[in-house]
């Protein structure tokens, strides 16, 4: 600013008040009127602010009462009441497999891409104590109801389950289909029931230190998935499972014992007997059946019992799981009856190369797959060995030694890539060798590769 500018400013600032002040004084209302007006405006502003405050309180209170809708990989899509007492959750599991058999010249099996499992899962919480689950499966072109049950959870120590669900016997069977380490369960799972209809009491004492289940079921053959019964007698199943250590390296130890018993009386037309499958899902053992002389068909005719000691150990990225299963069944063929005992066992080990914590449930990658962020997800390697030993007394009366082996032994290795909690890619190779089971000696070994893309939420 130049000297002229400063001079002009001085004139204006100095003379301004002389001109303006008298005008203001002339327009000013009386003090009391002004005060009244100020008070009135002050009250109006205060009222408006208070109304806004109350509206915000009301909105916050209303939000608390609102039904909430959520979506997550862990819990699927859910709608929940404000108090959490009522909820509906929609979950899903889809597994797309490619199964390829290598060197299957003697008994060719079909190499195929297929939908192994396609399960929409509906879960509901009704009130404080009641829960419900419905799980059909549309995989492999068929519709099968897997779970339809309700739980009344009175307390952690005591709950009642009614409907169709997994009887509490096999450890690997009790692991969810989306959580198992390999694409297919081991040979040992052949000897335990899959799903059955019944009533189960259960409890979890001292926050998981001791869990127990005891139930009454229709009774199904080994590996069976039943919706009804073929006889009046019922099966009883029970399991106790201990996780005795809460801290330290042994905190991941779980050890248990499960079993079932009951009478099963089939007929030559409905045998109530199982057949057993390889990990490649090919039937390798079946009891005697005859299309020409049905009267010679073998059938269940007496007590069926199972015993399954089981354990797992998880520490850091390492997981070990093992079980031994025994299955007894009284079987009749024509005029001959025998009590047959089959045994099986399996040991599975898995390790997360990317350091994730291993557990009985699926892992959640520390860094989900994101090419832009340069993260890869979680990688797990796994190995397994399993055996199934058929009672020698089964042959030749109750099963044909030229078509059913006396023993199956399988080893497998696998690679699991968890892109995110919800997405898993599996590649497994499994080799199963047999003792007997063919006219000339041993049945041809099964070698297969299975790849899977699994989406679960």
């Amino acid at each position, binding site marked *: 600013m130049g000297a002229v500018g400063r001079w002009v400013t001085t004139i204006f600032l100095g003379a301004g008040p002389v001109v303006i002040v008298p005008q203001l004084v002339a327009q000013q209302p009386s003090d009391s009127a002004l005060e009244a007006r100020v008070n009135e405006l002050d009250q109006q502003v*205060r009222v408006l602010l*208070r109304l806004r405050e109350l509206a915000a309180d009301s909105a916050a209170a209303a939000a608390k009462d609102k039904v909430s809708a959520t979506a997550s990989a862990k819990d699927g899509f859910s709608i929940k009441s404000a108090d959490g007492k009522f909820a509906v959750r929609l979950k899903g599991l889809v597994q797309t497999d490619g199964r390829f058999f290598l060197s299957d010249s003697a008994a060719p099996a079909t190499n195929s891409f297929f939908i192994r499992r396609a399960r929409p899962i509906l879960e509901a919480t009704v009130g404080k104590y009641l829960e419900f689950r419905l799980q059909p499966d549309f995989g492999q072109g068929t519709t099968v109801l897997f779970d339809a049950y309700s739980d009344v959870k009175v307390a952690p120590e005591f709950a009642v389950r009614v409907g169709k669900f997994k009887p509490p016997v096999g450890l690997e069977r009790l692991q969810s289909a989306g959580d198992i380490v390999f694409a297919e369960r081991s040979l040992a799972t052949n000897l335990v029931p899959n799903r059955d209809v019944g009533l189960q009491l259960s409890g979890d004492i001292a926050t998981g230190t001791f869990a127990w289940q005891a139930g009454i079921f229709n009774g199904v053959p080994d590996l069976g998935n039943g919706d009804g019964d073929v006889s009046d007698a019922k099966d*009883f199943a029970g399991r106790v499972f201990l996780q005795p250590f809460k801290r330290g390296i042994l905190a991941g130890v779980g050890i248990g014992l499960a079993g079932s018993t009951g009478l099963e009386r089939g007929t030559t037309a409905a045998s109530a007997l199982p057949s057993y499958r390889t990990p490649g899902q090919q039937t390798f053992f079946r009891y005697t059946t005859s299309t020409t002389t049905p009267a010679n068909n073998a059938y269940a005719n007496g007590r069926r019992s199972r015993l399954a000691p089981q354990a797992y150990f998880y520490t850091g990225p390492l997981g070990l799981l093992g079980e031994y299963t025994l299955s007894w069944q009284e079987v009749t063929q024509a005029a001959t009856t025998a009590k047959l005992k089959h045994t099986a066992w399996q040991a599975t080990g898995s390790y997360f190369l990317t350091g994730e914590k291993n557990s009985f449930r699926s892992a959640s990658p520390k860094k989900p797959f994101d090419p832009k962020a340069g993260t890869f997800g979680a990688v797990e390697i796994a190995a397994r060995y399993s055996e199934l030993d058929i009672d020698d007394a089964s042959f030749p009366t109750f099963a044909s030694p030229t078509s059913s082996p006396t023993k199956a032994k399988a080893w497998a290795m696998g690679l699991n890539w968890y892109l995110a909690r919800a997405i898993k890619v599996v590649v497994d190779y499994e080799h199963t060798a047999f003792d007997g089971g063919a006219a000339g000696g041993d049945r041809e070994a099964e070698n297969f590769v299975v790849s899977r893309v699994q989406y679960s939420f």
Partner: protein
Amino acid sequence: MRIRLAIRGWIILPVLFALAGSRGVAAQAALKPVTLLNVSYDPTRELYEDFNHQFASYWKGKTGQDVTVRQSHGGSGKQARAVIDGLEADVVTLALAYDIDQISEKGGLLPANWQTRLPNNSSPYTSTIVLLVRKGNPKRIRDWGDLAKPGISVVTPNPKTSGGARWNYLAAWGWALRQPGGNEATAKEFITRLYKNVPVLDAGARGSTTTFVERGIGDVLIAWENEALLAIKELGPGKFEVIAPSLSILAEPPVAVVDKVAAKHGTKPVAQAYLEYLYSEAGQEIAARHFYRPRLAKVADKYAAQFPKVTLFTIDEVFGGWKKANAAHFADGALFDQIYQPGR
């Protein structure tokens, strides 16, 4: 037979196992710490904070059992609805009997004769409705009639959600009825004018106190006597004055054990003792210290000086009881809905 025995074994053993492992073993329950939930109305926070502490000491000394009392406060009607909807109150200490009647009728949580189970209609202390004005009473408010004058700004909560607000409304209505030439029509006209002077309707009595005292809104607060005296005690006599109207209503806030909830929680004996302790000399002292009018003559005499002299009428005398008052004035579409339109 063998199957039947086996079934029994399979069912009974796990049940016994669960019971043995659970914490519900009867022998342990006697000395197990216990928690009560007292669902109350807005202005009783301080009263029950004090009372709960003293009751816990009393109960510990008497039985050796630790008791913790949790409090929940809000508009009385709103609190009653919360209990009906599942808020598990062991005891309710609400602003008016009608709200507990609702818990009995709609929730089925306690019997209809609940009010006969404790002395004085299950109301261990009383209060009334007074006017709180700013120091010096700049608008010269002396009685109910002044509240309906133009230019007076009145603060009172919403009778649809607040028990205290209903007492306020009925006190004003009762005064109008008892004026020379007073009848239902003149009372309605008076109340209509009064509520035109209300700029903010809070959900509960404590909210209205906040509006008047802390937010500086309005010329007069229609308030529980205990709330008005507490405001003066907390904020100092230099800021507000209590105006005792020529006529007001006898407010009898009732208390009750919520039988079904208390039975479910196993807290019925301690809940009953909790309410009975309100009638004891120690309980009455605490009530009086928090400006509730005690029932016990000895304590009432001791604290007589702190309560202004007001001529009181009861709800039964003027309105025929809470049921009738509610149906005529506060039910949906009743008189209050007719005279008060939000936003007008």
